[in-house]
């Protein structure tokens, strides 16, 4: 194979794995020409020198895969940081709006979308954070983990963007004088800024997900199979680093009895939200508080059913081991 043929193949392999190409191709060409000149100076004919140089450089698919792996790792960890910043920014704005529109939900449905979306987003971001913290600083994050991080970030970004769009739609379609949350100009500006950060975070999340999927080209049909076991390992590693190895038993237990744990969490959420509502609105608002608690409990169960698999919290029955 000539150097030109090799570079064309390397470019094709990099493109297939959605990795940046220009700089690597330039460096590869420089390297191959230098190596070829050295081999020719040692007495090899030009054709032989080119073929030997290409062999020593490594198969195009192998080099492209290693490069894509490194790029995807960096993109994923960076996307987690951006997503965490976006979550904090948006949650901050929601809290500010809620405080400005006290008492909460006075002009329902403004705020309902954010209230619902922030919870699955927090769960998805938590999953991505655990995986990212476990593998940050390690030479190359495993492809399965990168895919799982990309998917979790996409879920978080979709939830938050959906909520932000819903808030904007509600605010813009309400009659004048009822839009408590958009009274202050600074609140509107803060909302716009948070929305911009959310968009950036979504782009980073999608990019990370696409790169992760492309690393292991062609991607497997069930890329998320085994993700729950990996997550359990990641949590155990982080807990061991924090010198809390006993806590990993609890995590293992929760993952082994996922639905029971979800139902228990939903019951806890119902009690907490109903109690908080009853305390703030008194006896008269008991029914409303209970309804809000039921919504929250349903949201917990719905989130686990809808997002549990893409987030790598639960696996298809055939992959569960007891």
């Amino acid at each position, binding site marked *: 194979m000539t150097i030109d043929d090799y570079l064309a193949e390397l470019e094709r392999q990099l493109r297939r794995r959605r990795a940046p190409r220009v*700089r*690597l191709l*330039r*460096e*590869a060409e*420089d*390297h191959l020409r*230098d*190596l070829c000149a050295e081999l020719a100076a040692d007495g090899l004919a030009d054709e032989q020198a080119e073929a030997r140089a290409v062999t*020593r*450089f*490594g198969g195009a698919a*192998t*080099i492209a895969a*290693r*490069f894509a*792996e*490194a*790029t995807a*790792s*960096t993109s994923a960890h960076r996307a987690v940081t951006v997503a965490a910043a976006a979550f904090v920014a948006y949650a901050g704005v929601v809290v500010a709006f809620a405080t400005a529109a006290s008492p909460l939900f006075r002009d329902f449905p403004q705020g309902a979308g954010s209230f619902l979306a922030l919870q699955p987003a927090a769960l998805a971001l938590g999953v991505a954070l655990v995986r990212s913290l476990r593998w940050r*600083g390690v*030479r*190359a994050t495993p492809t399965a983990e990168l895919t799982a991080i990309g998917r979790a970030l996409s879920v978080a970004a979709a939830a938050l963007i959906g909520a932000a769009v819903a808030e904007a739609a509600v605010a813009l379609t309400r009659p004048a004088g009822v839009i408590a949350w958009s009274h202050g100009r600074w609140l509107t500006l803060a909302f716009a800024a948070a929305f911009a950060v959310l968009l950036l975070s979504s782009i980073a999340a999608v990019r990370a997900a696409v790169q992760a999927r492309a690393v292991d080209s062609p991607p497997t049909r069930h890329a998320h199979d085994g993700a729950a076991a990996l997550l359990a390992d990641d949590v155990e590693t982080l807990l061991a680093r924090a010198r809390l190895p006993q806590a990993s038993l609890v995590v293992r237990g929760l993952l082994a009895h996922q639905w029971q744990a979800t139902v228990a969490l939903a019951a806890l959420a119902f009690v907490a939200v109903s109690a908080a509502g009853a305390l703030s609105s008194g006896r008269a608002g008991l029914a409303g508080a209970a309804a809000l608690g039921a919504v929250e409990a349903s949201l917990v169960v719905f989130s686990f059913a809808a997002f549990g698999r893409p987030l790598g919290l639960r696996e298809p029955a055939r992959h569960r081991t007891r």
Partner: protein
Amino acid sequence: MRGDVLRNHLELLVLTALEAGPAHGYSIIRGIRERSDGEFQLLEGSLYPALHRLERDRLVTSSWSNVAGRKRRVYKLSQKGRATLEQQERDWRRFERAMNLVLEGR
């Protein structure tokens, strides 16, 4: 020596090669080969993904420079890279000492 064994230590090898001064990819590979007395025969293309990752981790910096009349990407060890190199060298020495103890006990 087997490539997959070397791959796990590529970072330490590259940082060590750059300790002597800024260098481009080809001279880094040559430096490693010469300093190992020809023992370390890396898959040469695998150096570049490693260099780009080290740069993203801010362990090295890079810029285009003219070297012998040609424009090349030259890599330089950063402060953080130097600290990482020292840490990795300490880790390696400890590992080497422990491994020797095990092997000598056969």
